[in-house]
């Protein structure tokens, strides 16, 4: 199974892998969600959705459906 941001546990961190850019909103990229960057799960709302992330120093929240599109490698 592919490991994505949606699979992170709270406090766990990963590195964003190359992804299919077409599916991911440009705004997310502009906020720092780019391959090679560090991502940490800060907090989740009930049902793990949305997810509160720290990506490359930017704090933002995205929905689980978007988090499932971002592949990562655990560190």
């Amino acid at each position, binding site marked *: 199974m592919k490991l994505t941001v949606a699979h992170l546990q709270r406090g766990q961190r990963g590195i964003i892998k190359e992804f299919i850019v077409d599916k991911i909103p440009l*705004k997310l990229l502009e906020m720092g969600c780019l391959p090679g960057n560090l991502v940490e799960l800060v907090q*989740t709302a009930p049902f793990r*959705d949305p997810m509160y992330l720290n990506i490359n120093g*930017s704090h933002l*929240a995205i929905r689980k459906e978007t988090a499932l599109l971002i592949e990562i490698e655990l560190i």
Partner: protein
Amino acid sequence: MGKQINVSLIGNPNTGKTSVFNQLTGLNQQVGNYPGITVEKKSGVCKLPRGLKAHILDLPGTYSLNASSLDENVVIELLLNKNDRDFPDVAVVISDVENLKRNLLLFTQIKDLEIPTILVINMADRMVRKGISLDIGILEAKLNTKIALVSARKNTGIEELKEMILNYRQISTEPCLHASIMDPEYFGRLRKAFPNQSLYKLWLVITQDVNFGNVNRHSLDNGNSFHTKSNSDLKRLQQKETILRYQFINGLLKEGLKVDLKSATDLRIRLDRILTHRVWGYVIFFMVLLLIFQAIYNWSSYPMDFIDSTFASLSEWTKNMMPAGPFTNLISEGIIPGLGGIVIFIPQIAFLFFFISLLEESGYMSRVVFLMDRIMRRFGLSGKSVVPLVSGTACAIPAVMAARNIENWKERLITILVVPFTTCSARLPVYLIIIALVIPDESFLGFNLQGLTLMLLYLLGFGTALVSAWILNKILKIKSKSYFVIEMPNYKLPMVKNVAINVVEKTKSFVLGAGKIILAISIILWVLASYGPGDSFNNAEEIVTSTYNAEADLDSDLEEEIASYKLEHSYIGILGRGIEPAVTPLGYDWKIGIAIVSSFAAREVFVGTLATIYSVGSDEQETIKNRMAAEVNPILGGPLFTFASGISLLLFYAFAMQCMSTLAIVKKETNSWKWPILQLVIMSAFAYVVALIAFQLLK
């Protein structure tokens, strides 16, 4: 006389851009709209050294020059149009020292437009606490710019910034990163096709449909054998641009920025552990709401009582001091009570805006969006709908506009359609006076019963909004791509100046906007109530005197009898009698019927209307509330405002779509008459049915 320097403030949301704007302009600011669209336009004048002045424009917050909303589009349209009156001589990009990396993305894009650009690094007072140190020399050299280290909160660095604005001609217009390196071949062809245009401007025009000069996307498609790329290729290039810019910024910050993590203490993590907690987060949010409503109710009662009695005695005083006649009556019976009906609600509106701006300034609002997204989505809304729904408690008009931040069209449309159900401040006057009449001023479990009723009404508004959203979500067949990204900003202590300016600004626009309508309606109503057709009005005194039986009417005197007979046979009385059959089943008399009809202009007219109608029939100095309490139901006898008719009236106002301005803004935002007309018909019919059922069950 020198020319004013045009300055545009540009920056990401949450960088303190508005704080810098407030520090530069003080109270010298104007709020208006961009022509043709409803995006708020804030501008002001800043005094520079040596007697010069700068015209400062506070542009909407944006993360980049690739617009995804109307607000963001304003920024790009301005920057691409050299002929615009507001086109900046110098752009000032505001960044937050803690989010420099992300904020610089926008800076490098603006710099590519070859406009003189100053970089403001704001919140410099947090550097020590966060262990951040900057090498301004390296940053200035690599970015080809001047940097002002500013703390808008501590008011430091502002004078240096003014000095830089004054000397803007010395700032290099050379880009710090040429976007053309992302695809030299493509940009080379672009250069050949349009030799006289800035490459980055061309690129922005190609990637978003912005017109400037004679060049637009359409002419590019056919122009000079130049072939643009497919949309997905363009999107890939935009992503490449973003990646390249970040690479440049990362390299830059490696040299220019040091963060000593050991000395950094993070308040955010500790606060978020509680405030976004899956249980405590919701408990706290609910407590915050409860606190706000209790405060609005209790704190504002003192100034309100004062205003109420002041206007009553002012009206009395005018009557006694001025020569008797129609003009004096117009002022003392029409205008003064009408104005009193709006001034009295200033305290509550000010308190409400005070709390809303505290929530936004502190960064807590984003946590609410985060907590509520999943729940809201069940109803076809987005977490971002919370902001429109909460600001709907102030006024539906800015709330409908706030829905622009929602990227998904279906979620946005549903939000716009249900926002008018939330309890706006115009309903507040109606609620307050009815609650004061029919709900006892007693405590229940330590909470004031009247305050609890008010809170229930707010919850009812939210509840109805949610249920109708759920229904709309099932009915509407709209396919739209959904995504949701929201920044979670740092917690900040709200700045007194920002909150104060916001409260003053919003209260002023409410009072002035609504005030005009209320004044006009008060005068019309007074005329309609003071004159009537035919003999029964003109000969009222004789008719009443001849039938007056002093023994049978012990508790009412002749004067009062005449006045109420006159009112009944005035134009407004005839009109009211006409609609009486429709409102009697709801427990109202024709006077309330008139007040409801005039409320379709704006709800807050209700109290002013009743004040005008009642004061016409009364000579004594009485406050509106006491006057209403004394009203007798013409059919059932007993007080007119009972628990049953009061609740019925509250419910009618909770559901009916009674605001022309909201309908106008919905038309504008949805670009169709279909939606506002649906709102008007469905909401008002629903309100009538619910009020009818409530009265018939409770009476």
